[in-house]
């Protein structure tokens, strides 16, 4: 029925008034004022589009970003070291999770081909692929089957111990505050809420791996100790774990550097005490730091 009505010629003859059209008197008023288009505001000076070149966005501070110092977040530092291994020229920029298209830092913005072109964004899970096609030297994944196994040591045992030491140890609450809470907001209520949610997230992450949901400090650190011993055993006095620097070296450096870094000012550094026993790992960290940073 309604379709028939709409198709009737009598209806069609009437001028159709759109809902959004301005009434005639109002339109006349607006016609007197020509629309002025203001010039675009320039992007802030520190924004990415101002300079060409590759930029890695990660957790860092403004001064350290200028000097290209290592990030204080192991997830970011791992990729920073990886890109250095691959010989990619880049500068670092301060960023936060909200700025990342995937919600996770780091992300990488390669230099645009032409000044007007839109920059591409390479999130961290695509960075290996990007590096393999664009980098000066490629960082190959070793074909050794042990690579996967040793990688899992870093991803489970050492990562868990790191999470525990940083977020759940009360003595390190000041460090978490300095690194992750204070840059977000100066309001004490917001800060309290942020640090609470950080702690909750770390607890949930640690509890996820067992069905009982219990987090045992002793077991976590014993596992980490075994993991360090195993990594030290594989490395020995060699330069790198496998023939050339690989993701394993980058991932290990990301933890060991931050554990040993004095600027971190740990309140309670159990992992650091453990690492004292493994001279090879300490030497490995010093080597990466002096050669690539």
């Amino acid at each position: 029925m309604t379709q028939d009505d709409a198709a009737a010629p009598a209806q069609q003859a009437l001028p159709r008034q759109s809902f959004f059209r301005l009434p005639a008197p109002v339109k006349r008023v607006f016609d007197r004022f020509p629309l002025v288009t203001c010039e675009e505001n320039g992007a802030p000076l520190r924004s990415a589009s101002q300079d060409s070149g590759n930029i890695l966005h990660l957790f860092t501070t403004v001064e350290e970003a200028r000097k290209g110092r290592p990030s204080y977040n192991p997830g970011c530092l791992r990729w920073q070291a990886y890109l250095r291994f691959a010989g990619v020229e880049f500068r670092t920029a301060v960023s936060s999770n909200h700025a990342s298209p995937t919600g996770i830092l780091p992300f990488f913005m390669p230099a645009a081909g032409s000044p007007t072109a839109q920059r591409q964004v390479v999130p961290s899970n695509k960075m290996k692929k990007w590096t393999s096609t664009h980098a000066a030297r490629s960082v190959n994944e070793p074909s050794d089957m042990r690579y996967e196994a040793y990688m899992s040591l870093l991803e489970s045992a050492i990562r868990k111990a790191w999470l525990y030491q940083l977020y759940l140890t009360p003595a390190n609450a000041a460090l978490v505050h300095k690194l992750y809470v204070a840059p977000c907001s100066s309001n004490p209520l917001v800060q309290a809420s942020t640090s609470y949610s950080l702690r909750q997230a770390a607890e949930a992450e640690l509890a996820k791996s067992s069905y009982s949901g219990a987090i045992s400090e002793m077991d976590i650190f014993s596992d980490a100790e075994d993991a360090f011993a195993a990594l030290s055993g594989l490395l020995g006095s060699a330069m790198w774990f496998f023939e050339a620097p690989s993701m394993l070296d980058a991932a290990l450096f990301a933890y060991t550097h931050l554990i040993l870094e004095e600027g971190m000012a740990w309140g309670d550094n159990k992992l650091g005490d453990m690492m004292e026993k493994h001279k090879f790992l300490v030497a490995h960290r010093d080597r990466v730091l002096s050669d690539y940073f």
Partner: protein
Amino acid sequence: MLQLHILGPAFDLPSIDAECNAAAALLRLHFGDDTDSWELHISHDHTLTLPCLRDDSQTLASGYNAIARRLESLDSWSSRSPPSADATALSSFIQTHGPSLLAINLYVSASNYTSNTRPAFTRILPWHANYILPPHRRAVARKQTEHLGIHSIDVDNVHEDMSHRPQGFEGVGKQDGGFETQAKGRASLLLGSGKATLRGLLQKPEYAATFKLHALAENFFEPLSEMLGHGDHFLGSEEAREVDCLAYGYLGLMLFPKVEQDWLAQTMRTKYPDLLRFTERMHKDLRLSTSVEEVMALRSGGDAATDAKPASLPWRRSQHSSMVNTVMTIATELVHQIPYLGRSPQVITTYPSRTPFWRRYFQPLLLTTLTSLALGGYYAIATGLLVWPHGKRVQIFGRKRLSDYGDLGAAISGISLMGAQIRHGGSGRGEKRVRVEEDSRDDGVVIE
């Protein structure tokens, strides 16, 4: 006397949990035929980390790694070399990638969970734990596999198995025989078995996730089988070690359950015969084959069953939980289900936590404060304890009358009223009173 507390037996294995199986295998390996120095207990407390090694008075270690470390420190094994770096790495590899595969296979996959895992739990759990433990484990399994993005095999969440069918689907296969055979061929390529038809495929939500699942399984099995080689034990070891027991725990639970969607066991059988042989050999050598019925009979039956030694493992009867315990468990579990106030992960530290109370319970505290403020405010206003701020009931605008200036004003206005009435005169006393009242209501008497 060492006691190993594990989840109950299932699928011909000593336990339904991978690490519990591994721990049982390790203790068997450690003590050999000596079944008098250790015993197996069935536990169904989901707040305990299982497996859990106790002696008569205290908990010695919980979790497989801790138990392995503990056993290593016992005298009888001190002559052995500590695990090599490769063994530690391999253990970590198994514990990193194994749990998510098992979680998908036994818990996340809806058809496997309802037709295999759930019934297996029913056989070993007391009635109340049936409503607590399996759903709890399934929730944890979902959380563990969230990042893999395999939601389509979990039909509790997605109702896509029916909605994704093309229109007129029923007719497609019947009208065109050629199409169906073609699809069959493709299906067998996908699933590795020729039985799947197009309809069967579309009805099973596993279809969409198949590629991803196979990739996951390959990523787990391939490095393992490479490290096993053609030898009897991992990493070319002469004898079975901790890492072999751990691998047995995980591989056994992947291989032995006869689940409906057996892509995992199928992949292992067809592509990795070395792993298959290893698992079956460990199972046989350590005599870990367990009959659920016998163990359960031992659990509920009389003393005769205890002496009969039905299983080769030293199972012991655990005490019956009393009615009070049951009620307490149910009550605690109900409390923990309340959002925000419920369970937060239990952190076991070597030193008592010095985290301030308000920081530990920030969210509950914030919620409680806000709620009590709101309720208190509402109560105060409802009972008149607090009055909503408002002005006078009567507002007078314009010029002021004399009576508005307090008592003195009222007196003066009274005098002037009297004067006015005397001028009017002639009326009765009752009328006068009425007039006065009317006047005071209107703004008739205004003295300038």
